[in-house]
Structure formats: C-alpha cells, structure tokens
C-alpha cells in the first residue's frame, strides 16, 4: 500500500514537473485588487486572455505559455513576496510588473538577484528602460515620461492661434509631479507662458478648490498628466466654474468612453494606442479574445494588455527550447513586434533601448457637431534618444 502511495506521489511530482517544463512560464505581480486595480487589472486580464488564445492555436514554438498572476494590491511588500515566489517556486522566465511605481524597487532587486528580465506592462515605464537601458528592465506601456509632454505641448503650439497661457494640473504622486515640472520648463522653451500649477493629493473629495486657483490664473490651455481621476475631475470642476479654455490630457485606458461621456469639444486626449472606434482587424480579434475569456472590461480597456501579449508572444518565439531567462533576455534585446495598427508603428527593443525606438502619438477630442469622437492629429513620431 505504502509503495503504491509513493508511486502515485512520485508520478504526480513528475507529471507536475513535466507540465512546468512543457511550458514557457511567465510571472506577473499586478494590482489586481485594491484602490488602483481599475488601471492595472484590465491589462493583466487582457494579456492573459491573449496568451490563452495563443495556447489555443498551438502555443509558441509548439509549447504552451503558462502565466502565473499574483496580486500585490499595489503594495511594495506584497510585490517583493510575489517576485520571490515567482522566481523560487515557479521558476519563471520573465517577471512582469503591472502595478504602482512604489512596487518597482523590490521587484527590480529580486530580478537582479536572479538575473531574470523584468518587463513593465501597463505600469509607468521606469527611466532605466530608456537608452542607455538597464540590462534587465523592459517596458511597453503606452505613456512615456518627458516624451508625452513633448507631444502634448507640440500639439498645443500647433493649435494655438494666440499666445499660450498654460496651466498645469497633476496628482501629488512622484511620477506625475516630475512630469508636470518637466512640462512647465518645456513650455517656457516653446514660448508659452506657464501661469499656474496645481498638484492635488490622491484622492481628493472635491477638486473645485484646486480648479478655482487654476481658473483664477486665466490660462487658455491646461495640460494635465496624472491618473485619469485627477485629470478629468480638475477639468470638470474648471468647466463648472465657467472656464472656457482648452484642456489636453493623457488618454488612459478609459479615454474613449470618457470622451463620449464628457462631450466637450475643447477637451483633448493624446495617446499612443489606437482607439477601438478605428475598427481595425486587430480590434475584431481583441473582441473575440475578450468574449472567449469572458472578460468583464469594455474592449477599449484591453489594448494595452493585448500589446503586452503580442510582445511576450514574440519574445518567446525567439527564445529557443529549453528556455532560460538568459535566452529570453537575448530575445528581448533584439525584439521587433508588429502591433497590427494598435500603435503608429512596430515596438522595437534593442540592447541599448528597452522602451522603444520610436513613440507615435495621436490626439482626439469629442466633435459636438458630429456627436462622435474625432481624431484631431494622426500619428506623429518622436525618436527616443537619451
């Protein structure tokens, strides 16, 4: 009897090991629950759904892709524990971070200790992914510090028919404050007059006091780069105070549905992901994948996760079997992914540049006359150099 039990146990162990060895294993630490989950969970779920779709078509190089997702609730201590577990127990080829920037440091530490690449998908790209890049850190997230301000202010300059008096709004988190400070400096070099900068704490029960100060400075443009709640609540409060200027802000996952909700012709969003209203063939694919995986999110929220799925699929295609983190790293260092129109061009990583070699921006607004979203500016490329 004992012998039979031992045999069964050994068999189960071997089967488990074989299962793990038969698959490319990717480990994700993401903010799946908690106050900021709305920004991150759709990315992880879309990425996972895409890779399940790939598995359904036979996998990558004839092997399945197994995605292990652990929830860090945007807490650094949980992210550290997740990274340790993913590396020690799951033996992942690649770590993914889809969470707040406060979770980066512990994951970077674990990634370095283990020599495993760390890929930021849906979370803010750290500066270390820009050229000259850290050997282990990669990023495909749409927004990019400094480049976004360059694109937004270039658009403002192209639209302005009179001297630009620009106001700035951001949430009191380090990344947003740094970007707004950068934009403020940049605006001066572009001949604009910065008139006011409002930094609101997260979260704020009423944005009107911040909007009042901003409106009192009488800007004809306002630029905001922050989590969506801060961007849009400041704008709405300013409108209710009677401000009639133009507002430009980053197109987060929910931008498309929010443009349709706000319906303001002077509220511009700029971003690097195509809108679902473009109705590209890849959008039909996203819809099909989302339906199959029974995802709870609107299709417009899934582009970022789909991009991450395409990136992982392509990186693994160039990772020969049996896979090791070193082989995955080598593949990621020479990656060019056709994003099928989801962005203005392919996503390309080199040994020096783990962000992308070119960043493409579009600008949209609500067209009140046509009662629909209008594209105000088509893809504009910015070369990514440091």
């Amino acid at each position, binding site marked *: 009897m004992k012998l039979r039990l031992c045999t069964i146990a050994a068999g189960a162990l071997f089967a488990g090991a074989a299962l793990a060895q038969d698959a490319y294993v990717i480990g994700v630490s993401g903010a799946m*629950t*908690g*106050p*900021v*989950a*709305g920004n991150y*969970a*759709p990315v992880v779920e879309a990425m996972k759904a895409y890779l399940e779709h790939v598995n359904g078509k036979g996998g990558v190089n004839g092997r399945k892709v197994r995605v292990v997702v652990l929830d860090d609730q945007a807490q650094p201590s949980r992210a550290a524990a997740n990274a340790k577990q993913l590396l020690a127990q799951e033996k992942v080829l690649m770590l993914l971070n889809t969470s707040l920037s406060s979770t980066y440091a512990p994951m970077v530490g674990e990634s370095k200790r283990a020599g495993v690449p760390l890929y930021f998908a849906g979370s803010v790209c750290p500066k270390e992914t820009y050229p000259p890049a850290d050997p282990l850190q990669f990023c495909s997230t749409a927004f990019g510090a400094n480049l976004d301000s360059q694109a937004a202010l270039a658009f403002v300059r192209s639209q302005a028919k009179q001297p630009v008096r620009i106001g700035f709004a951001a949430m*009191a988190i380090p990344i947003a404050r740094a970007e707004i400070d950068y934009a403020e400096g940049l605006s001066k070099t572009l001949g604009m007059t910065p008139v006011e900068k*409002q*930094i*609101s*704490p*997260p*979260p*704020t*029960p*009423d*944005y*009107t*006091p*911040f909007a*009042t*100060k901003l409106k009192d400075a009488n800007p004809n443009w306002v630029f905001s780069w922050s989590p*969506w*709640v801060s961007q849009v*609540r400041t704008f*709405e*409060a300013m*409108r*209710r*105070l*009677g401000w009639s200027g133009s507002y430009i802000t980053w197109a987060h996952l*929910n931008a498309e549905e929010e443009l349709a*909700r706000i319906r303001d012709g002077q509220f511009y969003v700029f971003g690097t992901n195509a809108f679902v209203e473009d109705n590209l063939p890849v959008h039909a694919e996203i819809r099909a994948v989302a339906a199959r995986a029974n995802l*709870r*999110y*609107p299709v417009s*929220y899934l582009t970022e996760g789909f991009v991450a799925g395409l990136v992982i699929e392509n990186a693994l295609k160039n990772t020969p079997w049996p896979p090791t983190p070193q082989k995955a790293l080598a593949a990621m260092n020479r990656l060019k992914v056709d994003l099928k129109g989801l962005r203005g061009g392919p996503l390309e990583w080199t040994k020096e540049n783990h962000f992308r070699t070119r960043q493409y921006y579009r600008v949209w607004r609500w067209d009140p006359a046509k009662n629909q979203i209008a594209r105000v500016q088509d893809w504009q490329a910015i070369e990514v150099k440091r």
Partner: protein
Amino acid sequence: MQIAVNIAVLASIYALICCGYVLIYRATRVLSLAHGELMMLGAYGLYATASLFKGHPLIALAAAAGLALAVGLAVYAALMWRMTGESVLAAVLATIALGILLRGAMMLAFGTLTQHPLRDLGWENASIGLPGGARISAVGAALILSTGLVYGGLFAFLRGTRWGMRMRAAGQNPLLAAQRGIGLHGIYALSWGLATFTGGLAGMLIALDAGLESTLVIIGLKAFPAALVGGLDSLVGALAGSLVVASAEVLLIQYVDPLLSDVVPFFVLLAMLVVRPWGLFGTREELDRV
C-alpha cells in the same frame, strides 16, 4: 465668494461623513473603522438601484437610502451585537475585519471600473451661478442641503423624540439606561442604521459628483480628523470640526500651497490634541474611554 462656497461644499462632505463616526461612537463607544467601506457600499447601492429603476431617479435614490439604513441595521444584527460587553478594542478590530470583507465583496460584485451613477440616473451636474460671481455644482448644492437636513433632522430626533432621548441616555450611561428598561440592542442597532445611512448618503453624493471608484474608502478616512477636532461624541462638534478642517484646506490651497491640503487636517488635529484633546465640543470624560 467662490472660496466661501468651496469651503461650504468641502465642509458639508466632511460633516456628512463625520456624522456616522459620531453617531456610532456616542451611542456605543465603538470607533467604526469600516465607515469608509460602508460609505462606499451606500454609493454602490445607488449604482445598483439606478440600474434597477432606470428612468425613475427619485425612486432609485430613495431605495438606495433605504438600503443604506437596512445595511447598517444588518451590520449590527449580524456582527456588532456580539461585541456588546466585549472590550472596545475587540469591537474596533471587528469593524476593521468588516471593512476588509466589504472591500473584497464590493470588488467581486462591482469590479474595479469607475462608475457614473449620475449618468445612470439621467441627470447632469449643472453649474449654478451665485451672487458675487461664484458658482456651485448642482451636486455641491445638494451636498450642502443634505447636510443641513441630516443635521437638522438628527438634532430634532435626539432632542424631541422618545427614541432620540433613549439614544442619548444609552450613550451617557448604558448601565443606568438598561436598568430603566431601555433596550440597548435596539438603540445600538438604530445608531448603526443612522450612521450607515448618513455615511451612505455622503458616498452617494460624492459618487454623483466625481464618479464611483474604490478610492472612496480613503475619502471616508480623510474626514476622520474633522470628527476628532470637533469632539468624537458631539454632532455640533462634527459640524464645527468639518468647518475648521475644510477652511484650513481651502485657504491653504488658495493662498499657500495646494500640496499642504493633504496634511493640514492632521496638523489641525495635532494642534487640537495638544490644546484640547477632547475636541472643540467633545466631553472631557470621553477621553479616558478612548
């Protein structure tokens, strides 16, 4: 004038939230750390009823308010009555556990996306012009009006009705009140019901103004210093504390640095703890109980 309006709206938000902390504390001596979650549950209640009663916004609002009251009663019946006679610490820990449970349950039930109950109700948050060139949003005006009605109603209830007097008696001396035949469980359940109703109302109005998302819980906690500044066992104190904290925040945003608005409630609280630890209108003896 605009600054005065901004102060009034922010103070109303804080006062409506603080009301729940005070009602529970003065009746049961328990500090409810699940108040933010109950507030958010009230807002999700409105989101649910707005979908259920499409085209009937007033019915949806009334149903959501009734639901909030019922949730408060249910929380007491299902959990908090078991804490009667236990140490205050045990009861506070129970509210923390309740908060964690509610947060998880709401995420499972409603997901993580921002919802817009105002749109679901078919209303718009119009801007209303006021004398002196100031403006206020329709929801902001509703917040001030609701706060006035809630506090007016509570003062009338506590001073002019038999149940209100029983509630005050139970708060002042539960043993004596029980010996005089007052059913403490009924009073405590009512205080939980009213607190969840007022907190839920605050949650609903904030969600109508700014959308409904999970950070609402944190806003519930941000109002806590206002309750302490006013005195944790005083409704008048809750009003005064909210006004002091809101004034400090708005004036700092306007004249000094907006970044200070996040920390100023705690500066005010620290100053109050140094000068008058029981708060502006709190009872001195309550401090020992805390």
